């Protein structure tokens, strides 16, 4: 990453999105694939490489969930990722077992040889073709944390479709919202994409613009038990402009230059961050919640 005063006037970085098709239920094979892509991203000069949801295991795990769960502090693969993050920051998805014996759909952010944060998926889809709440415990927080690049918030797939959750990263000061996804495509459209791809892009455009933050969405492709994952990974600028998008069907390593100065530029024009009123939202929510009845 170039910082101000170095080679040019703007802090630019290269973000890489690894739109993979993980091998279902085989972390060793997926680990090898992660390493190959890390090497490719490094060779391309990437500063940050992001993988999809459950990139180490595949998505449709069912009873494999417990078999493949690892502890982030002690697992040898996690330790290798931590070490590899000395050269470029890594975000990836895995099944995490905490000390309490519960398994989570988790995402880890490694940078500079350290584990900076683990996000545990809060919104576990459990309807239609989804049954995550049957196999995973629910995370309980959306925490914005510091990274070498920008204050960052992690989300996993269905988390991102809840604008209340996105608001927490906005209010928490995130300049970069990273979404790891394993979103299957549903429904037909006139474009060369599933109808649901539009939904993710709509959310990406909206949340980036109204949070004045980068939204980086890394989805996967491939088939699992007939489900087609819909790719279309993207990066939106803090002004809601599409900077790059990957294929809707193919594996791809999307590498995109990101100018972090766009955050400041956007906030001069779009003062949502300045005008945010979290204390009013908080008090209003308390009043709403206090009136809940069943």
């Amino acid at each position, binding site marked *: 990453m170039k910082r101000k005063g170095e080679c040019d006037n703007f802090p630019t970085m290269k973000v890489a999105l690894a739109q993979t098709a993980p*091998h*279902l*239920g*085989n972390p060793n094979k997926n680990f090898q694939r992660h390493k190959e892509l890390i090497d490719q991203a490094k060779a391309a000069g990437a500063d940050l490489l992001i993988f999809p949801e459950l990139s180490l295991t*595949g998505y*449709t*795990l*069912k*009873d*494999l969930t417990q078999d493949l769960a690892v502890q982030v502090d002690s697992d040898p693969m996690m330790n290798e990722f931590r070490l590899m993050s000395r050269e470029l920051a890594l975000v990836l998805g895995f099944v995490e077992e905490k000390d309490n014996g519960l398994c989570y759909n988790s995402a880890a952010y490694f940078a500079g040889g350290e584990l900076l944060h683990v996000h545990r998926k809060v919104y576990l889809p459990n309807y239609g073709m989804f049954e995550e709440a049957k196999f995973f415990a629910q995370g309980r927080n959306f925490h914005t944390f510091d990274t070498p690049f920008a204050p960052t918030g992690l989300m996993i797939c269905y988390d991102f479709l809840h604008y209340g959750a996105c608001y927490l990263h906005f209010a928490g000061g995130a300049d970069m919202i990273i979404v790891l996804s394993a979103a299957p495509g549903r*429904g*037909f*459209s*006139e*474009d*060369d*994409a599933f109808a649901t791809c539009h939904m993710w892009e709509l959310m990406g455009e909206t949340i980036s613009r109204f949070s004045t933050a980068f939204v980086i969405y890394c989805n996967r492709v*491939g*088939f*699992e*038990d*007939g489900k*087609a994952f819909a790719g279309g990974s993207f990066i939106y600028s803090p002004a809601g402009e599409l900077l790059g998008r990957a294929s*809707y*069907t193919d594996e791809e390593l999307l590498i995109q230059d990101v100018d972090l100065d766009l955050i400041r530029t956007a906030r001069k024009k779009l003062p949502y961050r300045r005008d945010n009123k979290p204390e009013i939202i908080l008090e209003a929510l308390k009043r709403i919640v206090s009136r809940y009845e069943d």
Partner: protein
Amino acid sequence: MKINASFVKKLLARFIATELSRFGYENGILGLSGGIDSTVAAYLGALALGPDHVIGLIMPYGDTFGRDVDDAEAVASALGIKTRLIDISPSVDAYYTRFATDSRVLKGNKMARERMSILYDFSEREKALIIGTSNKTELLLGYGTLHGDMACAINPMGDLYKTQVRILGGHLGIPDQVLNKTPTAGLWEGQTDEQELGLSYTEIDEILYHMIDKRIPRRELIGQGFEEAKVDRLIHLIKGAEFKRRMPPIAKISERSVGHDFLYPYDWDK
């Protein structure tokens, strides 16, 4: 009901290639009837695997469906896939010599299962995975023979209504005489699907699309102008066919039962 045929084609070819490769197969095999469904499946298979890796079994009952055999051969020749012509009448007749019947349904089912039996035999002989040809309309209405034409290893077209298969067929450039042929399950001579179901596929798919994909309840469908008797006929068929879409129920009496709380993905480590 509209589809982007070019995108769907790419996706379904990718599905076939992925599934075969996962299970260690290079070749696909399918029954080629000369009708639109198996023709579209053959085109998708050829696209996914290359024509050299697709085998079409043409399995007529004697010379009852001569024109269909011609059409199936024309499709195979246009695609450049391998075929094998196998007359099922000797084995089917041998059975009915012992257990005679006049029932067209029994005979039709027997023929469908004879074809299935040959397909699975050739699947092993040719080391080729069976590509299914059932569409969503058939699966919903149960318009197929259990363990007969519904049997397969993968089903690329099971989420496309008959109308959508026809759109895809047009895009793929399948021969006109197949694209415009009156759909028949080939259960007996002169039999047509629409005659037997009592509705045209256009009507059926329009109702099913709103009922299933758009989740519109019966009362609202009728309110929107769909004929009550037709809606009820389709609901009746869908209800009656659930057993064809599911594995048989297992009596769950142990601590952990297959298919109930012993749950692993189909593509597990494939």
